């Protein structure tokens, strides 16, 4: 059919096809991503001077700097996310190594599936589990009393460490998977050769394994950091009133106080931090954004 068509007709039909395929993509990207973020940007850069009268200003960002609570929360959220990412990496690496290099056959696929299972369940359910385990009337405090470690049940919720436990738990899968795929592509003979040439455990890890796994490590860290920074559920439920997570500030400004201008400014600060870290991670490892996304 297409051979018989005149060039003009086929070019027209190709154009029509392009338009039809382009329409949903543009509707999605413009209507749900680009324009909403522009609106958010405009909101964050205006200030209400009278009811329904606005003028351009940086007042929201000035408030962020002047009010210690706000920027403390911001810095705290960033630091806690970095710590959570580091702990996740340290905990995930041995397991990823075991799955990629030591386990074989049935054990290997079983361990892999066991890493996946908890993440088929929603974060709400996983957080509920941690609350039942850790709260004052919960399982672990009761166990500690039973073992005679503490005389009375202690409250294990609402500490920074609790928030970290929850965040590490929620992020684990997103670190384990890219690490496994990075480590599996490492040829065992390279390690054997390094050993023959007199390398020891530490130098082999540093000079062979980590450089080879770097793309996986960076991909995992970027995804985990981003998810942690933007998390709302885990810090608010496990940290309670002490959580002071930045997404909570955004929610308070937007939904509770109805101060959209301030909330929008906070949103942009969080987006800026998240984008900066992703960009820095990609620059450091010299990878392309698309490749990392494919990997994770």
């Amino acid at each position: 059919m297409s051979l018989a068509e005149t060039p003009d007709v086929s070019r027209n039909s190709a154009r029509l096809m392009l338009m039809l395929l382009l329409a949903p993509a543009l509707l999605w990207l413009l209507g749900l991503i680009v324009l909403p973020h522009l609106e958010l940007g405009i909101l964050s850069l205006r200030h209400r001077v009278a009811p329904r009268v606005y003028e351009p200003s940086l007042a929201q960002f000035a408030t962020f700097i002047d009010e210690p609570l706000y920027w403390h929360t911001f810095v705290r959220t960033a630091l806690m996310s970095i710590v959570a990412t580091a702990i996740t990496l340290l905990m995930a690496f041995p397991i990823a190594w075991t799955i990629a290099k030591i386990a074989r056959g049935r054990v290997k696929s079983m361990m892999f599936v066991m890493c996946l299972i908890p993440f088929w369940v929603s974060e709400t359910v996983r957080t509920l589990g941690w609350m039942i385990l850790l709260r004052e009337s919960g399982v672990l405090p009761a166990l500690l009393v039973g073992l005679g470690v503490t005389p009375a049940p202690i409250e294990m919720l609402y500490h920074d460490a609790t928030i970290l436990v929850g965040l590490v738990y929620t992020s684990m899968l997103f670190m384990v998977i890219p690490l496994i795929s990075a480590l599996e592509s490492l040829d065992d003979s390279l390690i054997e050769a390094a050993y023959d040439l007199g390398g020891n455990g530490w130098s082999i890890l540093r000079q062979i394994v980590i450089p080879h796994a770097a793309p996986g490590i960076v991909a995992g860290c970027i995804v985990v950091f981003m998810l942690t920074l933007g998390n709302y559920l885990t810090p608010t439920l496990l940290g309670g009133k002490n959580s002071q997570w930045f997404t909570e500030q955004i929610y308070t400004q937007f939904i509770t106080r109805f101060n959209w201008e301030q909330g929008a400014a906070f949103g942009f600060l969080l987006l800026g931090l998240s984008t900066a870290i992703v960009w820095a991670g990609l620059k450091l490892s010299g990878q392309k954004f698309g490749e990392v996304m494919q990997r994770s």
Partner: protein
Amino acid sequence: MCCLGWRPISFNYWWVSAVIASLPRPLWLRTSTMLYGVAFFAFLFLPLAVVAVFAFNDASYPAPPWRGFTLDWFLGGTDAKRLGLFADAAMLGSIWTSVVVACWVTVLSVLVGTANAFLIERTQFRGKQALSMLMLAPLVIPGVILGISILAFASGIANQADDLWGLELDFLRPGLPLVVLGQFSYIVSIATLTITARLKRFDVTLEEAAYNLGASRAAVLWTITLPYLKPAMIGSAAISFLMSFENFNTTLMLVGSDAPLTVMMYGRMREGATPVLNAVSLLLMVSSAVLALTMMRGPKGNASSHSD
């Protein structure tokens, strides 16, 4: 660290044999690997295990001690204080809300994701590279920010319509239509990635052969290309459904009066609810396990039917 070279060869030998399976490993290394593995999987499964166990505890609060086995948290309905899951109309309603939202998100994501795959793989136009990059952007935007930006934009339009023409556009106010759009805005990125990856591996000569044999465009699409894409479409449908069902961050910002399950559970968890939460959690665990297992069996069955 090179100065550690004095270490006996046997230590090096142990270490190397620990890192790869081909050589025998000493006992202490096997033991510590095993212990770490056990501790790690205990960490992964302990929270889920307690959620499941306390769904059956005969106490009005999901906490120890164990007071005996009961099915009240599923079936109970006579006492308002011991309302079971299947008598809890609010909870059942929120499950239904979540299912409806997830169905919409799934259908939209798979349709648009498939169109995007053809756009990326089969057409040429200026700015295609930039557009396909932009399609990945929603994955690196925190969910909370996706939520508030869509909320602000939709409210802006609704306010304009109200001011200029006196139109009341309810679907642009917080509520389920906005929840669907908010979840769709990033889940479609994942569907696009999955379906594009499969279309990339498609052998175009199959289509050319069909054209040479006189098939029409629609027939080729329907009988050759789409069946080839089917596994990726089914896979991304399952992922979309699960991600929509579990979404919390974006949903929280856009939700109106009808709360989907995650938002409802969050509200009750803050109040300190009865084990009915454990009951609904167990239900979720079982159903996502069933969904995931059928997914994992699915591709194998497809592969074997292709090779026949």
